[in-house]
């Protein structure tokens, strides 16, 4: 039994940008053929993708799955269904579950559960320190054997600079990247949104840009000191973008991501104490948003990740300063990012690099459309016009600021391992 994806434009930067049909056999890409080529048409199931775009499977490098421990917000199953609907064939799960993914038992639990489900793939990130408490190193090698692809204490920074240095050296030896949640907690000082005029107007305690950038700069220096690979999560400030741009010019071994909300919204959109506009780092100013877009354009920002952070009403239907940070993103990331293409900031190739190829590179996945490769593919309908409706989310949580947002372009079909895991 074969599957033929018919009539689409195949975009795999550096490889294809052409009208091609893709033939899949079992879990592999068997052939990429011209649309007119009809020779092996027996026993073929056809996916009509006329007018659509086929790209290497999208990978979201920054997802909070909440299981084990906070299953009322999201389970591995609901999270992966949301991923599949969002067009993601793979995600990288953050370790701040309960218990924390700081040992191979938890790593194995996540991987086994994901394998049972047969939806999108999960590549877990393990904690850098035991309990992500920032005191002693976790058994990173043991977790690597169990399947982690990166290390992070995301949710909080690793404040101790010496421990960060040693963690970088240790991970360099294991050839595993560290994902940095850059935040100086003393500068953030318990703030709930960006420090600036909107926060002053609302009487909400602010978090200055420097709270992020000061740690970005520190870890650039530590990467230079150790030669270890550092990846910065959710970059939100113009100063961070500039610091990373300059460091990359010097050849420092760093990469970074931003999230769709940072190039779509600003702190002026946070009105009426709506806690769905509260995330960490916070929505920044117009200038920051512009700098983030510029960073995406010139390649300073390597990739887009959603920082999917499901929360229930218990954490969100409360006073703004008491609400949990974070928003869901798996099912809005692609449509929001496609707007960058429509607005002329990125080409479709750029976007595929930032949502499929570069994330794959970071965690060591060969994500090309080539015969013999695993058939992890995303089909995108660029023309689907719709209004984002959180009630339709596959995710267990609906904490998004994008309800009612008009969008164009969305996932048409998601294929993992030659199997359709989502189709519209």
């Amino acid at each position: 039994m074969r599957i033929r994806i018919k009539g689409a434009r195949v975009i795999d930067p550096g490889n294809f940008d052409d009208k091609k049909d893709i033939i899949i056999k079992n879990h592999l890409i068997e052939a990429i053929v011209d649309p007119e080529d009809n020779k092996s048409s027996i026993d073929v199931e056809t996916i009509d993708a006329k007018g659509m775009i086929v790209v290497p499977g999208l990978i979201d490098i920054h997802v909070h799955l909440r299981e084990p421990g906070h299953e009322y917000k999201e389970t591995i199953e609901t999270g992966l269904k949301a991923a599949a609907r969002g067009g993601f064939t793979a995600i990288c799960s953050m370790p701040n579950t309960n218990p924390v993914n700081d040992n191979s038992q938890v790593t194995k639990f996540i991987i086994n559960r994901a394998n049972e489900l047969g939806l999108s793939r999960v590549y877990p990130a393990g904690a850098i320190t035991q309990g992500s408490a920032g005191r002693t190193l976790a058994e990173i090698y043991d977790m690597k054997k169990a399947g982690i692809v990166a290390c992070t204490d995301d949710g909080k920074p690793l404040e101790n600079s010496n421990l960060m240095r040693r963690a970088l050296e240790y991970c360099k030896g294991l050839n595993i990247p560290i994902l940095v949640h850059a935040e100086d907690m003393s500068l953030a000082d318990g703030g709930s949104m960006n420090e600036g005029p909107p926060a002053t107007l609302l009487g909400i305690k602010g978090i200055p840009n420097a709270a992020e950038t000061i740690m970005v700069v520190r870890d650039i220096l530590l990467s230079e000191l150790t030669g270890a690979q550092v990846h910065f999560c959710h970059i939100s400030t113009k100063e961070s973008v500039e610091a990373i741009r300059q460091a990359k010019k010097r050849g420092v071994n760093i990469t970074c991501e931003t999230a769709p909300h940072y190039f779509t919204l600003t702190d002026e959109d946070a009105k009426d104490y709506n806690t769905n506009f509260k995330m960490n780092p916070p929505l920044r100013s117009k200038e920051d948003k512009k700098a983030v877009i510029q960073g995406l354009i010139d390649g300073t920002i390597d990739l887009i990740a959603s920082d999917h952070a499901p929360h229930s009403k218990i954490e969100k239907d409360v006073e703004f300063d008491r609400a949990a940070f974070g928003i869901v993103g798996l099912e809005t990331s692609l449509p929001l990012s496609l707007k960058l293409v429509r607005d002329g900031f990125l080409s479709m190739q750029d976007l595929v690099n930032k949502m499929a190829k570069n994330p794959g590179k970071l965690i060591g996945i060969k994500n090309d459309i080539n015969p013999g490769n695993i058939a992890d593919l995303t089909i995108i309908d660029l023309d689907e016009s719709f209004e984002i409706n959180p009630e339709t989310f596959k995710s267990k949580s609906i904490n998004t600021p994008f309800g009612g947002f008009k969008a164009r372009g969305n996932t048409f079909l998601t294929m993992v391992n030659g199997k359709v895991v989502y189709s519209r």
Partner: protein
Amino acid sequence: MRFGKKDILDIKSLEAHEISLILDTAQGMKEISERPVKKVPTLRGKTIVLFFQEPSTRTKLSFDTAAKRLSADSISLSKSSSSIVKGETLIDTAKNLEAMNPDVIVLRHSSSGAPHLIARRVSSSVINAGDGIHAHPSQALLDMMSIREKKGKIKGLNISIIGDIAHSRVARSDITGFSKMGASVSICAPPTMIPMGIENLGCRISPSIETCIEGADVIMMLRIQKERQGNILFPTEREYADLFGLNKARLGLAKKDVVIMHPGPMNRGVEISNDVADSENSIILEQVTNGVALRMALFYLVAGGSRHADSD
């Protein structure tokens, strides 16, 4: 003129003509407080819940007195007597309060925006009695009432506000209200206490207390709250008083008939010297008197005033 608002949440959501209506109504209410029998039946049968999640003796007493003078039944809930300490959410608490069918809920809360959250969920009127560092509309309104009483107007006055602007909900509401009513507002504080973009509320930042006070018609001094600030915003009260305290010498820079205000409670010898606090320019105690009248006006307008024409 009708007052069409269900809630009084902050000054920025009030139009200038609504502010004038409130101040006019309050002026009428003040007369009641001067009678031998300080009580009218206007809000008889109405229920007012005073829910103070944050401790406050003065504001609560003022609202309570206002309710009683209008013959409303007031019920007080404080943090210790309510179940919020047991982990109930604010929304749960609000819904429980609403089950008592109050006409008005007066809320004091440590989180900015808490009254807005409640107002969206309950059908009772909500009056914000101070939320976090965001707003304290009844205080700003009574300040405007007191200024108008003394000066006959607000428009065109030079008003100086000095002190911890960053952590003051009174400052935010005062700046917004004064500038909305046509005053020229200048503020002064250590830069550690001036929040980013405060000018957008309608004021300018003076480099020193002297330039701030020069030619002022009104000076509003804000309380320095040591407990909130630790000592990272200013080193000592002594040094604060030296740099930003209002004393007789500095007072000479203002207009002769300058009016001195303070939302209370004062730190004598810190932000304001004894002789200035007790000088004839000071209207600090009149602010307290006007506070009751102003809050009577708010109750009347949201619970029994022109929204119910027959209650006049």
